[in-house]
């Protein structure tokens, strides 16, 4: 009965990216380890890690680049698990837009939502074809990616998730074309990770949480259909639509099968990339901001 309460802040509204968490929740993988996990969705993906740093929540779902920027700003955060182990971010244009290559973007308008990181991604991708950021018009469309693309107000968007926006566009009858960031000069990274407060690292609940998450992923890949029912079960019936079903299908292969494992050199490689792009000022010792829990 006296289960340990664990507040977990998601990065965004509930979507198939969070599947392992909900499967673990529904299957009781958390509770059987003595955890009472509460999942909260925010509307600004920036805030959850800050609140973990401030001690207002135990864990937060974050992005690897965001995490490294926050650590660089001195937030006492540590990555303890990975949810999605590949990049999802991509540059998307409409398939019938005549933009077959990134080079065709010269003089076009590109929308983005998150200043800093996404513009860096775009810079690097443009560099691959000999363009500069100033060769395109940048517009902050504030998370209104698909509508601005569909209504022809922008020619491409960076920050689109390949498992999501591509399906969205397809469903609206205007299929998109994605340029995957890791194929255009950006080192691979973990899209979604779980971060904790540095002071909490010795709490046994955190390891228990990662274990439950691992069990969740395993159940998910073993029983995808049953997992889907668990995911949309109960009070999340409104998630049951064509878009989420497709996104679910496309996300399945991208979950980290060993959530607790840490590929140290991959993290350092990405840190070097961010440093090189002047997104972060320095590279702290890895153990300060990313660990494998004992």
């Amino acid at each position: 009965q006296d289960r340990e309460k664990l507040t977990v802040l998601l990065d965004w509204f509930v979507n198939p990216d969070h599947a392992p968490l909900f499967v673990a929740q529904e299957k009781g993988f958390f509770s059987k380890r003595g955890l009472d996990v509460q999942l909260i969705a925010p509307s600004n993906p920036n805030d959850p890690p800050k609140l973990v740093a401030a001690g207002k929540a135990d864990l937060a779902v974050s992005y690897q680049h965001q995490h490294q920027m926050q650590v660089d700003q001195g937030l006492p955060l540590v990555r303890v698990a990975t949810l999605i182990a590949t990049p999802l971010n991509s540059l998307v244009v409409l398939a019938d837009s005549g933009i077959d290559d990134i080079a065709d973007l010269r003089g076009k308008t590109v929308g983005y939502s998150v200043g800093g990181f996404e513009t860096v991604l775009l810079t690097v991708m443009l560099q691959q074809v000999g363009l500069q950021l100033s060769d395109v018009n940048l517009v902050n469309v504030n998370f209104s990616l698909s509508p601005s693309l569909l209504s022809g107000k922008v020619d491409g968007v960076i920050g689109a998730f390949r498992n999501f926006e591509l399906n969205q566009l397809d469903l609206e009858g205007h299929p998109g074309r994605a340029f995957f960031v890791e194929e255009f000069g950006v080192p691979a990274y973990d899209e979604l990770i779980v971060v904790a407060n540095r002071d909490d690292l010795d709490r046994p609940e955190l390891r228990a949480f990662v274990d439950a998450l691992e069990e969740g992923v395993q159940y998910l890949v073993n029983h995808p259909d049953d997992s889907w029912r668990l995911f949309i079960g109960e009070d999340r019936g409104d998630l049951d639509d064509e878009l989420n079903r497709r996104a679910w299908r496309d996300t399945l292969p991208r979950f980290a099968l060993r959530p607790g494992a840490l590929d140290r050199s991959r993290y350092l490689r990405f840190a070097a990339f961010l440093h090189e792009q002047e997104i972060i000022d320095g590279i702290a010792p890895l153990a300060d901001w990313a660990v494998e829990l004992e």
Partner: protein
Amino acid sequence: MITARRLIIIAAGLIGLWQLVVLATKAPPYILPGPWPVLQAAIANGSTLLHHLQTTGIEMVAGLLVGTLLGTSCALVMIIAPLLRRWLLPVLVISQAVPVFALAPLLVLWLGYGMASKIAMAVLIIFFPVASSFYQGMRRTNRDLLELARIMGARPVNVLRFIVIPAALPAFASGLRVATAVAPIGAVVGEWVGSSAGLGFYMLHANARMQVDVMFAALALLSAVSLVLYFSVDYLLDKLIYWQPTQGVTHE
């Protein structure tokens, strides 16, 4: 008072207008869906919508109540203590200039993820029109009345109660009308602080997943509720100022 029949006519008119805008601007359905698909979405998600409406409704009403209370208090403080006013007024003005996303983490830090932080955000948006209008109204109290009260040896609190406040009620009412109109957006913005229920949350959610028709269903519901709230408050305010029956300027 607005009769049920008139309400229906107005609703029909608004929906007609909506359809007209859709037709006239040829807005694609993923940006502005027509009334019909939205109605279907509303029916399909009826119970979910009503569930979220409950939360937002509570936030709206609570935000309006607390906001009105806070607004009147601020106005009273500024009237009673002109010295304090010099400091309070700039703070109030700045409070209106701060965007949500800057405040959201602070509010959560101080008030947590519960209702409190959402209502606080709603209050922040709602209280200002009340405070400003009420204060201005009180400041415009007929000077002769104040002199009369002073000559009578009135206690300041009674001057406020029997003269200054009633004299400012029309101005207060005007501010409260504005506050009521922005109460829904106050509640919706409050839900951005981090929530898992409410129409604002649900709309963001639907928006993020491009369920535009669902989002507009929630929007239509929110609009309907705002209208009911607004006209109820409007009616009550007209009653409150019983000595000043309203009438048209032109002859209807």
